Structure formats: structure tokens, C-alpha cells
């Protein structure tokens, strides 16, 4: 099975074999990452540029490490500090980039659809590292890999996604990925944090945490995105924690072997109990970070193979 696309813009356009192709290769890279010599030359000679138009520490570090482990020349640009302040449009940025001949472009942008737009204008492979409230595909893939390794499969699981669904690109990508792989997805959260039209997503929606967590295999907590709250979605953090914060009592309604996930960074005591987050018997939050590097290595490797094959097919045309 192979990955058939030239970019990784979201989960929506992917078919199950695309997802499996990335996860299978990521499994191998996860093993490589546990060795002493963690290096491959899959991307040797290629240039990877990370463009983050929005603050990020973890995702950017993960992409950087992934590129370096595969031997790429990696450059990271913090865009909010540079050209957009000077009024340069995204299209101008794309043209500037083209002149630098990148092979892989990793982009995070605060506006939904901005990465799609950029991908139409550059002649390299583009990876979406999060665009607005739209998608964050590598997060969904790393979550999938974590689940697959913990549960031994990625189908016919009951998976609850809890919290601020409305503002979360992680939730959207996960809903799509888990649905495509034939799992039952439940969304739990206050109705003010549910996106509109959610009933048509092929998911079950719960407003009560205990009810929603009943017999689930996986509990995915979302960060309460305080910076996105432009006013009055919830009355207070403490009421939110009381009703929707994950603690041992609420988790007791899930299956005994249910795992707990969180995309990070966590607000301890707001959406998740600190002790529970550290409980190595339940929490796989550290594994998620580990799988993040492996999944990004796999995605970039597959995209680079497609890119080189495409260039070979039109030799002399591409620069």
C-alpha cells in the first residue's frame, strides 16, 4: 500500500489505504527512534522549510527533529515576526519560497484554508501543520498510531473526544480519520463548544461526561483553547473542570483498560486532572509525543518519494 497524494493538507481527502501506508511506515520509524543511532538518509539532500505563521513549540520541534533524523536540510521560519507584518500576502510568500527551491514545506497558519491556498502556488510537497480551525492531519495520524499500538487495532473502537470541539482542528481531523477507519466516535462537551451541524458528522454527541464515557476504549481530551475564546463560551474554569474535566471518577465509567490521550499542551486542573495525566497505566500522552516524530518522518518520507517520482517523470521540466 502506498500514499497516493502529493501533499498532506488534511485527513478529508485521504482514503484508508493512504492512512495505513503512513502508519505502517511510522511504525518502522518509531522503532528506529528508539535505537542509539537514530538516523536515516531518506531525505538526504532535500530541503525542508517550516513556516509557522502561528506560535508553536511542540509541533515545530517535532517536524524539525523528524526532518533532521531523515537527513534533510531543515530551516524554520517564524513568520508572524517577519514578512506578514510588512503586508506581504501569502501568495507573495509562496513566490519567494519557490525561488529557494524547497522540497518539503511545513506550514501552520491561523486561517482555515490558508495551507490549501499556499499548496496551489508552490512547486513542492506541502504538509499542513494546522490551519485555523480546519485540520491538523499529523496530529490525527499520531493519535491513530498511538491508539493502534496501545489497542492492537484501529477499527471497531469506541472513542470519545471531549472538550472544545468547536475551536479544535485536532478534533476535526480526528473525527474524520477515526470515522474513515470505522470506529464509533462520540463527542462530549458543553453545547457552546460544539460546532454547528455536528449532528450530520456521523458521530454521537453527549453533553454529559459520565454518560458519554460509558464503555469507551479511548478518551481523547482537548485543550481548552483559552486564546480562541472571544467571549463567554463557558461560565468559569472551575465549573468547566467540575462538569467536563477528566478525573478518576469520570474515567471509571469508561472501560477498565481505556487509555487517556491529550494533544498537549495540557491545562492541568482545567480539562484534565494532573495525577491522571501522569498515570502511566492510563495515560499515553508521552507516547503521543513520541509517535509524533515517527508519523512526521513517515509522512515526509512518503511525500518526498512521490515528489521525486513526479520530477523524474517530467525530467528536465522541473527545476
Amino acid at each position: 500500500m502506498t500514499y497516493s497524494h502529493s501533499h498532506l493538507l488534511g485527513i478529508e481527502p485521504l482514503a484508508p489505504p493512504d492512512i495505513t501506508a503512513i502508519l505502517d511506515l511510522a511504525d518502522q520509524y518509531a522503532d528506529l527512534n528508539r535505537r542509539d543511532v537514530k538516523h536515516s538518509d531518506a531525505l538526504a539532500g532535500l530541503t525542508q522549510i517550516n513556516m509557522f505563521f502561528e506560535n508553536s513549540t511542540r509541533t515545530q520541534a517535532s517536524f524539525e527533529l523528524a526532518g533532521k533524523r531523515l537527513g534533510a536540510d531543515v530551516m524554520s521560519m517564524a513568520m508572524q515576526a517577519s514578512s506578514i507584518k510588512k503586508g506581504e500576502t501569502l501568495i507573495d510568500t509562496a513566490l519567494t519560497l519557490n525561488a529557494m527551491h524547497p522540497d518539503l514545506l511545513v506550514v501552520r497558519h491561523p486561517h482555515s484554508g490558508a495551507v490549501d491556498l499556499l499548496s496551489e502556488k508552490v512547486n513542492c510537497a506541502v504538509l499542513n501543520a494546522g490551519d485555523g480551525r480546519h485540520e491538523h492531519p499529523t496530529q490525527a495520524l499520531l493519535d491513530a498510531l498511538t491508539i493502534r499500538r496501545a489497542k492492537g487495532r484501529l477499527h471497531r473502537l469506541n472513542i470519545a473526544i471531549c472538550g472544545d470541539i468547536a475551536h479544535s482542528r485536532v478534533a476535526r481531523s480526528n473525527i474524520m480519520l477515526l470515522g474513515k477507519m470505522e470506529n464509533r466516535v462520540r463527542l462530549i462537551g458543553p453545547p457552546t463548544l460544539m460546532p454547528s451541524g455536528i449532528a450530520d458528522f456521523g458521530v454521537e454527541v453527549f453533553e454529559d461526561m459520565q454518560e458519554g464515557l460509558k464503555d469507551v476504549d479511548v478518551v481523547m481530551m482537548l485543550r481548552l483553547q483559552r486564546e480562541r475564546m472571544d467571549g463567554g463560551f463557558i461560565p468559569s474554569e472551575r465549573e468547566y473542570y467540575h462538569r467536563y474535566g477528566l478525573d478518576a471518577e469520570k474515567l471509571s465509567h469508561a472501560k477498565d483498560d481505556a487509555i487517556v490521550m491529550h494533544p498537549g499542551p495540557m491545562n492541568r486542573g482545567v480539562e484534565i486532572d494532573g495525577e491522571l495525566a501522569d498515570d502511566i497505566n492510563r495515560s499515553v500522552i508521552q507516547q503521543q509525543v513520541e509517535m509524533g516524530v515517527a508519523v512526521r518522518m513517515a509522512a515526509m518520507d512518503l511525500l518526498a518519494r512521490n515528489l521525486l517520482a513526479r520530477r523524474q517523470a517530467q525530467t528536465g521540466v522541473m527545476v
Partner: protein
Amino acid sequence: MSILFTNARLIDPEAGTDSLGWLLIKDGVIAATGSETAMPKADEQVECAGACLAPGIVDIGVKVCEPGERHKESYKSAGLAAAAGGVTTMVTRPDTLPTIDTPEVLSFALRRANEAAPVNVLPMAALTKGREGLEMTEIGFLMDAGAVAFTDCDRVISNTKVFSRALTYARSLGALVIAHPQEPILSEGAAVTSGKFASLRGLPAVTAMAERMGLDRDIALLEMTGAAYHADQITTARALPALERAKRNGLNITAGTSIHHLTLNEMDVANYRTFFKVKPPLRAEDDRQAVIAALRDGTIDVISSMHTPQDEESKRLPYEEAASGAVALETLLPAALRLYHAEDLSLPQLFRAMALNPAKRLGLDAGRLCAGAPADLVLFNPDTPIVLDRFKLKSKSKNTPFDGARMQGKVLGTYVAGQPVFEAP
């Protein structure tokens, strides 16, 4: 000077008829129509070969970007586009730079229009200064200078006291007020309509209900003030019962809708195609169907192009940041003919909404095919297939959602006051 159109399919929105016949124009007005074989003599004869002859389109709400942004659209380019699209009267918007809110600016715009545009141009003026919703404009002076209606365009006057006074003052002068029914806080920053599509794309959205809330408020103000009011665009099913009730209660209210809301829905935005970003945003298919039904039964009176030129720079942006609006003077007729070919509306019904009703609302004689009406006419073949190429549009801006679309309907000729202003090559 007289012209006789023979063997024409006469589309008469007033009589509601669609029949073969002849039409004679003389000295800029329609002199006679008929279906008999004995025809009057004329200086010139146009053999229509069964093509449709209808009153020229009266388009309320055209944005011409003069003064201020002539690089987007000038009176000349908009006028040529209108002529090519069968639009014989452009009722222009005041949302220019600066706003058309004083008699001086209005006179400037009107002078430019008369110099450069081959079709009729009737300007609208802002209802409040700078469209800021704080102080009313000189409605009386502006009417004297030629303003046919008063509107703050897509800005809602959220200060109800200001709006009620402006409506009261407008009523005393018999001025028509055109408003954009929308709850301004709910719709702030919205790029699409709430629902599954908005959530999938992760775009800021406004509930369709915000239109009903805005309309409900405006209707209450009409009951208070008795002003003459036209809603620029009614685009949702939820707003229709309120509109229908207000009409039944005898309020002086009419409503329009845009050609884009009649022929496209929110799904057409697809992968963040910003040429489909209009204001209000495109709606669900159920809403589109409801609006078509409302046009059929007369609850909605007017179809407008809501022609809004935008340059490439303001559209080639992430969806949230991209400017709203689409050019439509040249695509209004072929797009409207989609409704005819889908058997949603007959040709007389379409021209009732595109010519007769807007003319009546503005107190014009146009929009009719009867003797004595101005000879503003469009001759078109409703069946000719076309593939739209946006770079062939006469507008300076090319932001049409119909680029590459297969459509049916071709304008063969456009006449203003009996003079040809466009003839198909």
C-alpha cells in the same frame, strides 16, 4: 427614427405572457406591439428569428467603484458590462471611496456616469454619513441631486434610534430606504453560513437566523414609522414568513435577492474558493429552494446582480481574509436562465423580478413592453450554450463564481431608449 422587431418571442412581465409577435419602437419609446401578420412600416427592421425580446433589466445594487477605486470598475467598464448583459438601468450603490453621502459627490458620480456609461444610471445615496450609522445624510438635497434610494449597503445601522429617525425623515420625503437585514453582532466576522459545511471547513459562521432577526427588527421599525423599505437580499427560508406577514399587514415593504443566492449554495465554496464569498454568505440548498418559491409566489419581488467588483489581490487570500462580492452584470441573465431551464420560473416571472418590479419600486416607467414605455430592451436567445470565460468579461474585475461554467443564454442586442448599446459580434 423607428425600428420594427419582427418574429420576436415577446416576454411581457406585466401581462405575464410569452408569445410570438412584433414590436415597434419610435423616438425612444415603444409605439406598438402585436401578433397580426399586418405589420406597421418602420425605418429599420430587425428580424428576430424567434429570439426573446424582453424589457431591459433594472438592476438595483450595482457597485461601480467610482469615485475611489477605478482600477476595480469604472462607469465605462460597468456600463459596457451592463449593456453586454442586457442590463439597461444600473441602480448604483454609494459604498464607494469616499461614500456617496453628499449632493456634491453624487453629482460627480452622476456626471461621470452620463459621460461614460451607455446605459441608464440611477444613483443611490447613503442613508447615514460615511455609512457609519450615526447621522442621517441630507436626504432632501440628495433627492434633488438625483438619488433614487437611500442605503448603507451591507452595513446594518445597529443604533435603532438613528435608524428609526432616518426612516421617519425619509417617509416625510417619500424616499425609499434599502437595508441589509442582518443581526450585526451575530454576523460579525462570519465568512459562511453555520452548519456542517462551515464546521468541516473550520470557518467562522453566522446562523441563517441572523437574517430573520434583522428583518424582524426592521419590520417593527416600519410599523412605527411607515417608511418605504426594500430589503436588499432575503436569502433564507426562516426570514420568509416574517416578510410575507409584513406584506399582508400592508406595510410598504418589498424584498430582493441576489442571483448568486438563487443559483449557488454553500457547498459551491468547496475547497475555499473565494470567488464564491459573497455577503450574506451562500446558504444551504433548502434555503435556495425556499427563495425560488418565494420569487414564484411574489413574496420576494426583485432579483439583483449585487455586482461587486474585487481585484485579484483582495480575493487571493485565505477565505476569512478575502473580500466579499462577485461581478455579475454580464452573468445575471444566463444565470437567471438556469432557473428557467430548470422550470423553476417562467420567462415572464423572471423579467417581472429583474425588470418590472424593480422599475415599479423606483417609480420608473421601464420594465414593460406596452406602448408608451421607454424602449429599453434586451434581445436574447435563451438556449444558446456558452462556457463562461472570466477573462472575456467587460468588467475590469474578473471575480465571477461562474468561470468555466456551462450556461445557456446569449444576449444578441441591448437597446436603451431605442438606441442599440450592444450588439452580439
